[in-house]
């Protein structure tokens, strides 16, 4: 399909700036933006249609809120119900600067922690807004009936989480994401029943409709009948989540995919910082070749669990037989101030390092112990069960080992993607009328996301930010003329989509979609995973076009397109992964520094810590699509730090 090109020889285009964030003190910007934004007359809102793709925390919250405001919302999810979006699997909690503990927390501190945690690659204005809105989220969720953990006095309980020294994480046992998502889903369901949201479950967005330079709708496929339909709107909101599944093995849901964002990218939306992927340190190690996904154990486990490996390489004794002085509690040793609560990237890399030294435990030596013996002795088994019961059960179900008696084994896995569609302060992409919220955008976490901040960002975007900022766009662009499938731009996009699916079905080769997915995933994990090198990335960049070529020669998709065809869904998502993987490697190659989740072996301190290079790389890299396999154009958005001054992160 694609002629080999010199993809790595990208060009640098015009720098881009965020034109929407107001100047002035950071704490006043959000208020000012809201005041300066134009509003849509409530009576006119019903005449505006807004498409929302995805029903996770961001999409569900946005759909419900826009409908409450009076807009006509048309919403999509590939799952059979909006309640199943993968936000549901978030375990640990949600941050908010409530300072209920009187432990010195504040909006200012949450802002500071998040900018620092993101290794100074996020936009200050956005992060401050996130911290401000965080307190409203908790109020909103409690009002919806989200059953957060409470203390005996009836007030909300909080816990501490990786990367911070205050207790600001609200939680609902180990199922916070589920409870928050169900809150948003219920609010959305109310609007669906009221006819304000037109919900299309089991319908997948396959392309973006751009007409006269504006996002005017999407092309979507009904996954049951196979019917491909254009849907039109005055604005499109992508809340389709991250792209971690490009790695095949990740903690994402099996069907989470990058098609919506990648198709938007192909239609003109810049893709920012694709190499910023987060590896989560506490996942259950893989058990064999058949592994189809990885399961995360909440990071909150690190509050009470102690991480260790045997001091001696190759020590095969069962954990119970290794005496205390032959154990290396390496996080507590290297980072005495934060200990087991260092940020995710640091914890992950440390685990990789000890395993590389031959001190890993479990099958293949790809694991470290997370030990609760001390916590059980200190707090009692009941208290530990109260906090982590369901996580322990889950671990035992999967591994057949009882973590109350034997330490858990954990290993890092791909978990979250900080990169995503570039958006301005209004969460609008470079395609006017196209907005991206939640994990689908790149905005708030910089190069590394702190624990319990994804739920915060998804809900902040969905409940509060987007519903304010989208007004401005809709007010400034009065309703467009009606469109139909005969418009040339629409017809072209429709034909594109139909051709792609037809082609996939026509190849009739000899390899399954999963076999290609595993291949590209292993390649990325090897060269664009926890540690990256120039040589490795170049190797991957050579290999990806070959895999893509082989894919279009050998893919086998049985069945037809006019039915529920899960192989076709997978193959179609792979088409996009095979292009996205290339951009990730290029982004990782061009960013010759280490920061957050992006660790370049060439850029580390003598102690083996990540070394940022602010003078060269203090920018967000927004990539412009130039054609499949063609070198993209880099647009830099310089990051200015007026309030939190970049320092080398130190958690020692």
């Amino acid at each position, binding site marked *: 399909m694609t002629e080999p090109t010199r993809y790595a020889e990208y060009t640098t285009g015009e720098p881009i700036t965020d034109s929407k964030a107001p100047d002035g003190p950071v704490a006043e910007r959000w208020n000012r933006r809201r005041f300066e934004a134009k509003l849509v007359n409530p009576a006119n809102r019903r005449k505006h249609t807004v498409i929302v793709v995805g029903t996770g925390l961001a999409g569900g919250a946005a759909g419900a809120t826009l409908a409450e405001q009076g807009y006509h919302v048309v919403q999509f999810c590939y799952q059979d119900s909006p309640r199943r979006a993968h936000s549901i699997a978030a375990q640990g909690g949600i941050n908010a600067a409530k300072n209920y503990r009187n432990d010195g927390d504040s909006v200012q501190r949450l802002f500071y922690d998040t900018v620092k945690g993101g290794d100074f690659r996020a936009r200050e204005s956005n992060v401050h807004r996130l911290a401000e809105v965080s307190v409203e989220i908790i109020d909103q969720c409690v009002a919806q009936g989200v059953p957060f953990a409470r203390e005996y006095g009836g007030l909300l309980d909080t816990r501490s989480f990786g990367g911070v020294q205050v207790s600001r994480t609200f939680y609902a046992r180990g199922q916070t994401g589920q409870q928050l998502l169900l809150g948003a889903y219920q609010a959305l369901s109310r609007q669906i029943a*009221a*006819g304000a949201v037109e919900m299309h479950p089991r319908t997948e967005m396959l392309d973006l409709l751009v007409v006269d330079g504006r996002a005017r709708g999407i092309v979507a496929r009904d996954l049951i009948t196979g019917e491909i339909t254009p849907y039109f709107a005055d604005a499109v909101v992508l809340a389709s989540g991250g792209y971690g599944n490009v790695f095949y093995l990740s903690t994402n849901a099996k069907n989470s995919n990058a098609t919506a964002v990648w198709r938007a990218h192909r239609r003109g939306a810049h893709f920012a910082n694709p190499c910023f992927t987060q590896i989560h340190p506490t996942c259950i190690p893989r058990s064999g070749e058949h592994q189809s996904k990885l399961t995360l154990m909440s990071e909150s486990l690190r509050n009470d669990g102690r991480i260790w490996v045997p001091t001696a390489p190759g020590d095969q004794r069962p954990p119970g037989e290794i005496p205390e002085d032959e154990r290396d509690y390496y996080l507590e040793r290297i980072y005495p101030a934060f200990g087991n609560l260092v940020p995710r990237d640091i914890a992950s890399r440390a685990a990789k390092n000890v395993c590389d030294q031959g001190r890993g435990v479990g099958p293949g030596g790809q694991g470290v112990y997370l030990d609760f013996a001390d916590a059980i002795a200190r707090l009692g088994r009941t208290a530990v069960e109260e906090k982590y019961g369901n996580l322990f059960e889950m671990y035992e179900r999967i591994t057949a080992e009882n973590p109350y008696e034997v330490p858990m084994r954990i290993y890092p896995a791909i978990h979250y993607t900080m990169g995503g569609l570039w958006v301005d302060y209004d969460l609008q992409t470079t395609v006017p009328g196209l907005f991206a919220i939640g994990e689908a955008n790149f905005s708030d976490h910089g190069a590394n996301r702190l624990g319990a901040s994804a739920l915060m960002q998804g809900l902040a975007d969905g409940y509060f930010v987007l519903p304010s900022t989208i007004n401005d766009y809709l007010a400034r662009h009065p309703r467009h003329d009606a469109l139909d499938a005969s418009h040339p731009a629409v017809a072209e996009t429709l034909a594109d989509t139909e051709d792609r699916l037809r082609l996939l079905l026509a190849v009739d080769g000899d390899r399954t979609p999963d076999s290609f997915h595993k291949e590209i995933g292993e390649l990325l994990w090897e060269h664009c995973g926890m540690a990256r090198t120039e040589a490795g990335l170049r190797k991957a960049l050579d290999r990806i076009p070959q895999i893509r070529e082989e894919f279009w020669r050998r893919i086998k998709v049985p069945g037809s397109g006019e039915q529920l065809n899960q192989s076709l869904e997978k193959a179609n998502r792979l088409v996009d992964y095979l292009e996205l993987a290339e951009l990730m490697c290029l982004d990782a190659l061009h960013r010759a520094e280490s920061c957050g989740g992006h660790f370049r072996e060439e850029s580390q301190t003598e102690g083996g810590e990540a070394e940022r290079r602010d003078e060269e790389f203090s920018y967000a890299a927004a990539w412009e699509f130039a054609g499949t396999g063609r070198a993209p154009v880099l647009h830099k958005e310089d990051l200015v730090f007026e309030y939190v001054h970049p320092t080398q992160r130190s958690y020692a």
Partner: protein
Amino acid sequence: MLLMALATRTDRKQRTDRKRADGRPSAVRTLWGSTIGKKAVMAVSGLIMLGYLVAHMFGNLKIFFGAAEFNGYAHWLRTMGEPILHYEWALWIVRLVLVAAVVLHAVCAYQLSRRDLAARPTGYAHRRRRASYATRTMRWGGIILALFIVWHILDLTTGTVHSGGFQPGHPYQNVIDTFSTWYGNTVYLVAMLALGLHVQHGFWSAAQTLGVGSATRERMLKATANALALVLTAGFVAVPVAVMTGVVS
């Protein structure tokens, strides 16, 4: 917004009887229009019949104290409530209440059963039974009991199908006649076993339906259901056994 919600739902199911925005249907209508309501009707009618059965059983046991006492008790049933009530009025009130209970119980059971069967149009190829025998036999047990009631009334109240010469006002002899035939005993024993099973699940189920059940009361309710089932079955079965063994003659 509320009207729109109504419109959406009404369109979907062509429902016109339920109102939302401007008041709800009456409690009786709500009750009869819902599966939970019908179950509540079954629970209450079932409990009425259960109460009656307990009294009936105690009455039956008087047969062990001789014909005079038993026949006297039967006569009292007719004079009960006098002088404020006329002869047999109280008995007829009881009968009417019981007929109403039986009819309501049966109609609800029939309607709910049809609904339940329709809700599972296709069964599993791999069959597996886990619910208790009592639970699974509620429907057949109910049918057996309904048929038994008809036979029982024709046999010992009206005497239409009675085996010997039916003598009004002499229930002691009538009972002995009935339990002197093999089929009289068989019908009665089968029905009483069905009754035990029906009461065992029915009492517990009624408690759940009426919202009395809770995690803490679970054990107490189950024990009560078992005890009731056992005592009723034993109490009723004692009479034919006594006749068969000659203890009562």
